[in-house]
């Protein structure tokens, strides 16, 4: 056993605290603002008929008591917390018969699939490039030209995505412009559909990988520079080891550990990391769902998505913290 129960309990307490704060912020922030979604919705429906009917205020009040909004705040809060505990996020306003959960579950596989792949790819490519940048025997290409590519890491991924759309999809027509799959395709487990989905995923994936690689490369380069001064590297060189062996077995392997910690952290942002790229690309994941809900003033949807993402991040971080002592034998949470 690498960690004590008291640590697990403390960490679990933090997990609950985070989820509770997320839910509470979700409840109180909208309450503190002067906006009234119910009145806005009714007003929108009423103005469609051209005039505001007499008795509009009574109608608003009737709906408010129907939704329980005339009860004292703490009662509303308790019943809200009860709903959250049971995982009841309510109905979507703009896609009415569907619940918030159903819509989130539709988007989730897209987002997780895209981000899992790109996070891992960016990690692998970035670490390798970073290592080559710090390696004195690598060719000049790696040592001087590639570092300038790190600049991509400074620019938001969705800005890169916009640029890619224009050149790759619109100008050169190499890849589809947006969406998750082509118009006229039916989702199913056949070869044609899978290939279509893949070709639609290349551009968003490319943007995310380009934006993500730089950070990994900088971290890896820093680590490898430090490691090159270590005695075992000098010893290995004096023994006459082959360069590639020295590079992979002695250098990269030792430098990789802090990178893996970073990977664990990055993986916890797997649900929220691509909101804007999805929006730009029209990719049918959580991000697009969030953007659409914002423009349609679908409050339950917005708060539901935010709550699910916060919970997802908190749980992944908890799991990562629990796994980590098994990855790095030097870390233990005893005492």
């Amino acid at each position, binding site marked *: 056993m690498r960690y004590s129960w008291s640590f697990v309990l403390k960490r679990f307490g933090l997990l609950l605290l985070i989820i509770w704060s997320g839910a509470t912020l979700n409840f109180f922030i909208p309450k503190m603002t002067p906006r009234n979604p119910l009145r806005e919705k009714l007003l929108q429906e009423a103005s469609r008929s051209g005039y505001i009917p007499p008795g509009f205020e009574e109608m608003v009040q009737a709906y408010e008591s129907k939704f329980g909004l005339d009860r004292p705040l703490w009662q509303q809060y308790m019943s809200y917390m009860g709903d959250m505990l049971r995982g009841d996020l309510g109905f979507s306003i703009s896609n009415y018969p569907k619940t918030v959960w159903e819509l989130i579950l539709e988007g989730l596989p897209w987002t997780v699939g895209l981000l899992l792949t790109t996070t891992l790819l960016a990690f692998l490519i970035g670490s390798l490039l970073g290592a080559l940048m710090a390696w004195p025997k690598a060719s000049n290409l790696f040592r001087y030209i590639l570092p300038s590519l790190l600049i991509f890491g400074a620019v938001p991924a969705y800005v890169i995505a916009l640029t890619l759309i224009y050149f790759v999809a619109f100008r050169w027509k190499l890849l589809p412009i947006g969406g998750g799959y082509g118009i006229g395709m039916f989702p199913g487990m056949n070869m044609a559909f899978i290939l279509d989905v893949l070709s639609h995923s290349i551009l968003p994936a490319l943007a995310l990988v380009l934006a993500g690689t730089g950070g990994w490369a900088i971290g890896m380069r820093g680590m490898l*520079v430090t490691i090159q001064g270590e005695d075992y590297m000098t010893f290995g060189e004096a023994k006459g080891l082959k360069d590639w062996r020295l590079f992979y077995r002695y250098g990269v392997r030792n430098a990789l550990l802090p990178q893996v910690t970073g990977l664990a952290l990055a993986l916890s942002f797997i649900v929220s990391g691509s909101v804007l790229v999805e929006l730009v690309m029209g990719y049918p994941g959580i991000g697009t769902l969030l953007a659409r809900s914002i423009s349609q003033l679908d409050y339950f949807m917005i708060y539901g998505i935010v709550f699910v993402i916060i919970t997802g991040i908190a749980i992944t971080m908890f799991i990562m913290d629990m796994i980590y002592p098994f990855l790095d034998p030097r870390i233990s949470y005893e005492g």
Partner: protein
Amino acid sequence: MERLQANLRYLRRNTSLAIGLGILVVLVLFTLTGYIIIDPKVDPYPLAGPASSPPTLNYCPRSDPDCEKTEPKAYIFGTDAQGRDLYGVAVAGTWMTIQIGLMAGLIGLGVGAFLGFTSAFYGGWYDLVVRWMVDVMLTVPGLLLLVVIASSLGDQTISVTGMGFIIASISWRGPARVIRSQVLSMREQSYVMMARLNGMSGMGIIFREMMPNLLPYLGASLVGAVTAAIFASMGLAALGLGPLREPTLGVTIYWVINQSAFLRGLWWWGAVPIGIVALIFVMLFLISIGLDEVANPRVRRAE
């Protein structure tokens, strides 16, 4: 004068800081000269050009298409579908975006530094509460928190200053954590002990003794906070939660996405905000790398 020369010599060695500051100077000059040329109350807003004619990259005002001989280059950056002059948008938007970033960054650094200093210095229950607050808030993705705040405020009330305040509500988290850990290691040093023995008050020690030693870190944190704030403001704006009536760079990108400018072939409409945004982020990235070198002399000659 000698000081200046020494600084210049240092800049020659610290190339990333030099390039970053160079871009900053270029952007400042661009904005300053721009504000002389444009009319900031009219040009960056819709209908700066006649709305009846399509967006254009002609170097002439649309009212006078054959101006080449008389008065060339009226719209250097072109216009968008609502008749905005994109040069005006570039000038005003750059300043507004930097304004949002600076405002949120400064507030965030101020609040974060205060929390970090006091919690590390006084310790105890107060420290525990601050630490848990920062831990919890850092787990919640900032963008989502901002989405909840901004969407419940509604787009009617958001102005450039309002945007700065909204983003400031999350930008204290990073500085608070970084500065707290720095102060923790500094608290036990002998000069702090000495000041305590002399009967200096807690706040006096924090502001007179410890703060000056942390100035390079505070500078680096400020750049970090401004970067994060601009990042957040761009993200919020792209989701349609920005100050939609103002021509900030983020809002301009929102219109580019919303009106599918690229798919209509109006590349200049997107190129202007994207180019400047990329330039701003590269500048902040280079300056932060350069400041890192100033703050940790050990990194200075790592190779």
